[in-house]
C-alpha cells in the first residue's frame, strides 16, 4: 500500500492523469475524421526526433516535438493531396521513423534501455520538472482545443461543407495535427511513443459506446483516459514487475470492452427514439 503512495508513484499519477485527460480530447477529432492512425504515425516519427535530439545534444522532448510537428505537416500535406490513400504512405512513414531513430541512436552508442523507455514509456522515473513540462504541454493543448472546439468539430463532421461555409479548413487541420504533435511529445514519458496513440483512440472509442453526442463521447473518453492511466499504474506498481505503459493501454482496452457491454445493455433497457 505504501508503495502505491510513494512520491515517485504520486508523480506518475499526476503526469499520467494529465495526459490521460488530454489525449481523448484531441483523439475525439481524429477518430471522428477516421484519422486515428495519424497519431501512430506521428508517434513513430517522433522516435526519430528523440534520436536526433540525442545526437545533437538537445533534450529528447524538443527533438520529438519538432520532428512530430514537421511529420504532422507532411502527413497532412499528403492527406490533402490524396497521397495517403490505402495507408501505404502512412505505413512507410511509420517504418522510416522507427528505423531512422534506431540507426541514429545506435550510431551515437545510445541504443540501450533508455530507448525502450522512449518507445514504451518510463513514467515511474519522471521527476517533478518532467511532470511540470507535461502539464504545460497538455495545458496548452487543452486550451487551444477548447478555444477552437466548435470549429474543429465542424470540420470533423463534414470537411467539405465546412470549407463551403467559409471555415479555414486547411489551417484548422494543421492546428489539429500540431496539437497531436504536442500531445505525443507530452505523452512520450507516460506510455511511450509506440503506445501514445492508444490513449488518443481507445478511451474515445469506449466513450462512444455510452454517449449520444460528440461532446458526451469526448467527456466519457476523458473519464476513461484518466481511469485507464490510474488503473494501469496501480496494477503495474502493485505487481512491481510490469511495464506501466503496457498496463495503462491494456486497462484502456478493458474499459472499452466494459463500455461496449454497458452500452449494449443500456440500449436494450432504454431504446432511443427512432422515427417511423
Amino acid at each position, binding site marked *: 500500500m505504501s508503495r502505491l503512495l510513494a512520491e515517485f508513484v504520486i508523480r506518475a499519477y499526476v503526469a499520467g492523469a494529465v495526459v490521460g485527460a488530454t489525449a481523448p480530447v484531441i483523439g475525439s477529432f481524429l477518430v*471522428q475524421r477516421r484519422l486515428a492512425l495519424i497519431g501512430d504515425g506521428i508517434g513513430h516519427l517522433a522516435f526519430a526526433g528523440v534520436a536526433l535530439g540525442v545526437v545533437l545534444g538537445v533534450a529528447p522532448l524538443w527533438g520529438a516535438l519538432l520532428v512530430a510537428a514537421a511529420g504532422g505537416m507532411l502527413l497532412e500535406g499528403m492527406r490533402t493531396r490524396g497521397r495517403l490513400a490505402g495507408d501505404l504512405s502512412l505505413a512507410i512513414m511509420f517504418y522510416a521513423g522507427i528505423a531512422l531513430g534506431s540507426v541514429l541512436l545506435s550510431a551515437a552508442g545510445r541504443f540501450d534501455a533508455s530507448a525502450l523507455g522512449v518507445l514504451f514509456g518510463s513514467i515511474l522515473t519522471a521527476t517533478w520538472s518532467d511532470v511540470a513540462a507535461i502539464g504545460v504541454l497538455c495545458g496548452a493543448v487543452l486550451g487551444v482545443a477548447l478555444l477552437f472546439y466548435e470549429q474543429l468539430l465542424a470540420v470533423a*463532421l463534414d470537411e467539405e*461543407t*465546412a470549407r463551403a461555409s467559409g471555415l479555414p479548413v486547411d489551417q484548422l487541420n494543421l492546428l489539429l495535427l500540431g496539437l497531436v504533435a504536442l500531445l505525443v511529445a507530452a505523452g512520450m514519458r507516460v506510455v511511450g511513443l509506440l503506445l501514445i496513440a492508444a490513449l488518443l483512440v481507445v478511451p474515445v472509442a469506449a466513450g462512444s459506446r455510452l454517449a*449520444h*453526442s460528440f461532446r458526451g463521447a469526448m467527456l466519457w473518453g476523458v473519464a476513461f483516459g484518466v481511469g485507464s492511466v490510474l488503473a494501469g499504474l496501480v496494477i503495474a506498481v502493485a505487481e512491481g514487475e510490469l511495464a506501466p505503459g503496457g498496463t495503462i493501454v491494456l486497462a484502456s482496452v478493458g474499459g472499452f470492452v466494459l463500455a461496449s457491454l454497458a452500452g449494449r445493455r443500456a440500449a436494450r433497457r432504454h431504446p432511443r*427514439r427512432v422515427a417511423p
Partner: protein
Amino acid sequence: MPVIELRGVRFGYGAVPVLDGADLALERGEFAVLAGANGSGKSTLLRVCVGLLRPDAGTVLLLGGDPRDPAIRRRVGYAPQGLRVATSLPVSVTEVVVAGLVPTRGLLRRVDRRDRAAVTAALRSVGLADLSAECLFELSGGQQQRAILARALVGERDVLLLDEPTTGIDQQLRPQLAAELRRRADAGAAVIVVSHDPDDFHDVCDRILVIDRGIVRQVTHEEFHTHLELGGGR
C-alpha cells in the same frame, strides 16, 4: 445585380464535359428549382456556385465576388446531397446544426444564447425541435436529412444552395419545408434547390431550371413535364 451569376461556365471530370457553357443569373429574393437527368450536372453546378469546384472556363460570381472568398461563403447556406456527416462517433442533432452556424461568427466567439435561439429556430423550421438532443445516426433517413437542411438554414443567409433537400422526407412534411424556403426567399435570400421532383416546390418557386447537355435552360412547369415524357428528366 444578380446574387448568383454564371457566364459561359465549362466544367468536366476528365475529358467528359458536364457543364458546357452554362449561364445562370439569380436575383435576391428569387427561388429556383434545378432539375435534370441523373448525371446531368445539377450537383456539379451547385458545387461550382459555392467554389468547391473551379470551372475550366467561364465566370462564376457569388454575391458579386469570388465564391472561394471565405467572407462570401459565410453568407451562403449549402447542403450537399445525402448524409455526409462522419459517422465514427455519435453526434447530436444540435451539434450538427451548430456546425452550420460556427463559420458565420468570429473564429474565437463562443456559441451564445442568441446562437442557441437561431439553432432552435432552424430545427423548428424543419420540424425537428423535439429531437435536438438525439443522436443523428439513431434517427430515420428523413430526419437525418432534415437535420442537414437545418444546418444550411441556421442563421441569416443571403444565398441557399440545397442539393436534393427533400430526399427521404415524408410527403406530408415537404410542403412545410417548401414554405420555409419560400419565406427565406421573401426575406431576400436567393434560393436554388436541386430536385428530381419540382412538383414539391411548384407552388412556391419562381423558376424551374433544367440542365440539359451542360446548358441551363428555364422552362415552365408544363414544359418540364413534357421534358420528362421525352425522357430528359429524373
